[in-house]
């Protein structure tokens, strides 16, 4: 066994807890000035006029940039995820809280004070701010899953099978608008050196940021340098290059000084996307033996005005593949509103869609008088029923077994309101989770130095998940060198390119590239060894050599890597290589799985709902670091508890303005809300998903949490709540 999987402390832990880790907004750039955004207070219409006299007269103000004096940006190119507005390119208003001006001043205080003096007069028009009222405007997304999937799919005849079903569920489920609220707000510092632009920015994707900025400012990619060594949480809201990044660069170009822009917490609600509200209509049926015969899942998700871009919450994709069912029909529609552009938020579609899917499965189990776990086992999909492919691996059965055993599921009394802890109603609920295994092309440079250091570089990101650490583990094991001799560097666009850290793809994508690059580097080293005059290995094949604890070992001799490099006359051996999804993996359906078991206690008089126990068992494929993986699992479950019981962005229905744009009233779980969480990583040492056998576990653990809680609340109270967050008034009787 190697070092992959070992529960090592994260290598950047000490830096982070001592404040030594430098985040984007903390870089000190000489001559830097400060910017702040001014945002609209109407949701639809246009700016009639600005009154900037008072603001311009304020001390320290360098410039106020509005659509009237903003730089015109190039619109050539741009990928399907491009955020097209608001970039101060015109006076139109598409949502409340839209950026309409940027104030630049010598100090932050001066910028903020001046921003408060900007006066705006609008031509307001009637906004669309209530999703239910404009459902008839729904239309199919044009770029569903970035064009990779059709928004609708059908197999069999779901409608006919529904009619024939012995038991049926026909219900609508609702998930709310949610905001990511990472600890670190979006922050950007931009500096121009002639026609070269450098930005320090908090992002989940430095390569896309580089491309986007190059496109907008008409530059070659090489002229844009993006730096992001640490990210204080992203959860999807730092996946796209949002307008504040671009506007900071624009401001820096106009004032010809380095400019820093850090969003306020309130601006984090209007500047970088959100999980859109969804309305999901499900019609499921089963036969009398408890076999699913029909599944129809129609998803509607809140969207902005199309001029801003497009995002659709893909709620029904899991429904295609999670259970064996011959008749399945799904559709996705988006509902244009005067709200900002929605975006990816931890398990986008999977988490929100699973709430509906796994609630409906529970409702069917109740109707069948079957144990919910037994019902799921009867409909276990041995292969992917949508793709008609074998799974790369699927140890979901073991997840069910180990999770239910640890939880004590067998002791569950099926009748609602039948279990009590003194006066409290006790509910036990469960749900299945799944998340696709994603892999994107990634590249890594390896430098084996004569100074006994091994440095790897990749233009990837560490969102706080442990990328620095786990990639060093993959490298150390692949090269058979001591972990301490390896340093993994990331967060710089001058490094070889890597994908957006999204879709839980970093471990699989960059990990595979690290492995490939280290294998290539090892071959280079073996070449050096064979060429070495003293070792006498000239006629040996590579297979006669091996690496061991930092040495190259061959017949009758061994030599330290650094020594070998030194003797070759070079400072270092440098190799760059990449990896992408290989053909072998394409023969498989690649998914991670999980089984969630929840206990809630509900006060029968006061309606307070508290989660009191949790067991989650997960099939995440091969684990790179048991400690950081465990942190991901308990973090994801915590995120799901927030979704189930607390998180919701409140939109004023008349103005379309967010009413709780702060973390006092936008409720995230606190420690007291979170019980002892038991997270099991079910062993699955596979190699089909990719050569490392990694499935990605950043998003998986939150999938199923909301449904498990809703199902537990039903079991506790007898009330089926088909929306989240589930609130006191939903169970108060």
């Amino acid at each position, binding site marked *: 066994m190697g070092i992959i999987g070992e529960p090592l402390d994260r290598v950047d832990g000490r830096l982070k807890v001592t404040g030594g880790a430098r985040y984007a907004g903390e870089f000190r750039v000489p001559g830097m000035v400060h910017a702040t955004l001014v945002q609209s207070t109407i949701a639809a219409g246009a700016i009639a006029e600005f009154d900037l006299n008072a603001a311009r007269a304020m001390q320290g103000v360098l410039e106020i940039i509005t659509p009237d004096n903003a730089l015109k940006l190039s619109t050539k190119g741009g990928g399907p995820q491009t955020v097209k507005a608001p970039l101060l390119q015109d006076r139109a208003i598409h949502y409340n809280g839209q950026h309409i001006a940027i104030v630049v001043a010598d100090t932050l205080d001066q910028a903020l004070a001046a921003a*408060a003096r900007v006066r705006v007069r609008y031509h307001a028009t009637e906004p669309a701010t209530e999703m239910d009222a404009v459902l008839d405007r729904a239309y199919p997304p044009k770029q569903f899953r970035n064009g990779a999937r059709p928004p609708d799919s059908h197999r069999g005849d779901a409608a006919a099978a529904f009619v024939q079903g012995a038991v049926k569920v026909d219900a609508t489920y609702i998930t709310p608008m949610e905001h990511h609220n990472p600890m670190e707000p979006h922050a950007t510092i931009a500096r121009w050196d002639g026609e070269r632009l450098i930005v320090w920015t908090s992002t989940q994707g430095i390569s896309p940021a580089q491309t986007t900025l190059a496109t907008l400012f008409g530059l070659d990619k090489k002229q844009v340098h993006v730096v992001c060594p640490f990210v204080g949480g992203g959860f999807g809201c730092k996946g796209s290059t949002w307008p504040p990044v671009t506007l900071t660069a624009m401001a820096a170009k106009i004032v010809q000084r380095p400019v820093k822009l850090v969003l306020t917490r309130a601006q984090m609600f209007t500047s970088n996307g959100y999980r859109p509200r969804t309305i999901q209509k499900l019609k499921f049926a089963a036969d009398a033996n408890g076999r699913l015969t029909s599944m129809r899942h129609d998803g509607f998700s809140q969207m902005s005005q199309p001029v801003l871009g497009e995002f659709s919450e893909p709620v029904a994709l899991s429904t295609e593949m999670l259970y064996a069912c011959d008749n399945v029909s799904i559709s996705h529609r988006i509902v244009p509103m005067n709200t900002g552009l929605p975006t990816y938020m931890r398990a986008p579609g999977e988490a929100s869609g699973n709430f509906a899917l796994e609630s409906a499965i529970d409702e069917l189990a109740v109707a069948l008088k079957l144990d919910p776990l037994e019902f799921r086992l009867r409909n276990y999909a041995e292969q992917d029923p949508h793709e008609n492919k074998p799974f790369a691996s699927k140890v979901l059965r073991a997840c069910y077994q180990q999770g239910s055993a640890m939880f004590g599921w067998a002791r569950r009394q099926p009748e609602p309101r039948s279990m009590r802890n003194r006066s409290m109603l006790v509910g036990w609920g469960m749900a299945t989770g799944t998340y696709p295994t994603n892999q994107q092309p990634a590249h890594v440079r390896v430098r084996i130095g004569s100074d006994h250091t091994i440095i790897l570089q990749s233009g990837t990101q560490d969102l706080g998940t442990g990328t620095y650490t786990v990639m060093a583990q993959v490298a150390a094991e692949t090269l058979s060198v001591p972990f301490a001799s390896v340093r993994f560097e990331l967060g710089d666009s001058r490094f070889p390119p890597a994908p957006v850290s999204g879709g839980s793809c970093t471990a699989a994508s960059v990990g595979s590239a690290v492995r490939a690059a280290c294998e290539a580097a090892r071959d280079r080293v073996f070449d050096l060894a064979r060429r070495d005059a003293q070792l006498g290995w000239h006629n040996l094949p590579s297979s006669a050599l091996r690496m061991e604890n930092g040495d190259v070992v061959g017949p009758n001799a061994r030599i330290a890597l650094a020594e070998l490099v030194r003797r070759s006359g070079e400072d270092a051996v440098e190799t760059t290589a990449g990896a992408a999804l290989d053909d072998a993996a394409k023969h498989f359906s690649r998914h991670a799985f999980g089984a969630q078991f929840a206990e809630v206690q509900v006060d029968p008089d*006061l309606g307070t709902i508290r989660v009191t126990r949790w067991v989650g068992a997960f099939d995440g494929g091969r684990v790179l670091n048991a400690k950081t993986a465990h942190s991901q699992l308990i973090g994801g479950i915590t995120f799901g508890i927030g979704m189930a019981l607390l998180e919701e962005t409140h939109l*004023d229905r008349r103005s379309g303005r967010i009413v709780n744009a702060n973390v006092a009233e936008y409720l995230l779980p606190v420690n007291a809300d979170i019980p002892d969480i038991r997270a099991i990583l079910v062993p699955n040492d596979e190699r089909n998903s990719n050569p490392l056998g990694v499935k990605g576990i950043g998003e998986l653990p939150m999938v199923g949490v909301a449904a498990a809680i809703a199902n537990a609340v039903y079991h506790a109270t007898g009330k089926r709540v088909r929306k989240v967050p589930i609130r006191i008034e939903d169970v108060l009787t």
Partner: protein
Amino acid sequence: MQSFQLQRPHTIDAAVAAASRGGTYIAGGSDLMQLIKDNVEAPDNLIDLEQLKLTGIRADANGLRLEAMARMSDVAAHPGVRQHFPVISEALLASASPQVRNMGTIGGNLLQRTRCGYFRDTGFDCNKRVPGSGCPAIGGENRMLAILGGSSHCIATNASDLAVALVALDATLELRGANRAQRTVKLRDFHRLPGTTPNIETVLAPGEMIEAVVVPATPAGPRSHYLKVRDRTSFEFALVSAAVALQVNNGTIEDVRVAAGGVGTKPWHLPEVEAALRNKAPTQQHLREAAEQAGQGAQPASQNAFKLILLRRTVLRALQTAAA
């Protein structure tokens, strides 16, 4: 955020004099700084009360006196407060977070502004912030807002937990005004109903400050309890809360104090519940019947009708706990 002058007077008289010239008091700053950062408040002169050393805490069988600058955390942990007035300690510990309680003061807590999201965002109209501009909250996101004491101009909830406990205990405020004027006012009379002037929240005269809170000795004090119901288990303002104090002698309730939070535009005294219990035996039925009296005249908005049911349940649970 606008820049401001900061004064740090060493005497109450100097502070009051400065405030009478147009200054704004700042105590712990945990609320006011937020309001300043959000441009809800833009004071030119801040008068920091830290140097007044008004931090005394006295609590025993003879009653309680808390000076205005006593820290929430210090009062909550004070042995005399915990022994003789547990409802005060519990209300404080149910407030905010340890960090905020370490900064927040007793006087500041009683003067904290509403959490109504429309008030706290200058992008909305608000009669409390800009008199006459209108109230989008009443027909908008009103789940957290008041069902008692509102007007067509404002239904913003008073957010203080401490005030609920102190209203139940019939606390008195010692006020200091210009020219060394001193007066006292009952806390129950201190906060004003919004009426047509929701921007005027208390009976404080310009420049007047709270020097201390006084609670008279009451045999009901030791048997008191604060119950706070909220969506999140901690660090959240009350959806509904109840403060109760009971004195039971020979199987009869001789004294009873009840007030509620999260439901009123001011900390809400519930004399109807008290009247229903006085001189009765603390039986489950009596407690239940009394709790049902809570919230008479409630006028819920579209999203918060459940608060009336929850209020009665919360009062009942608090009474049951105190009576047990």
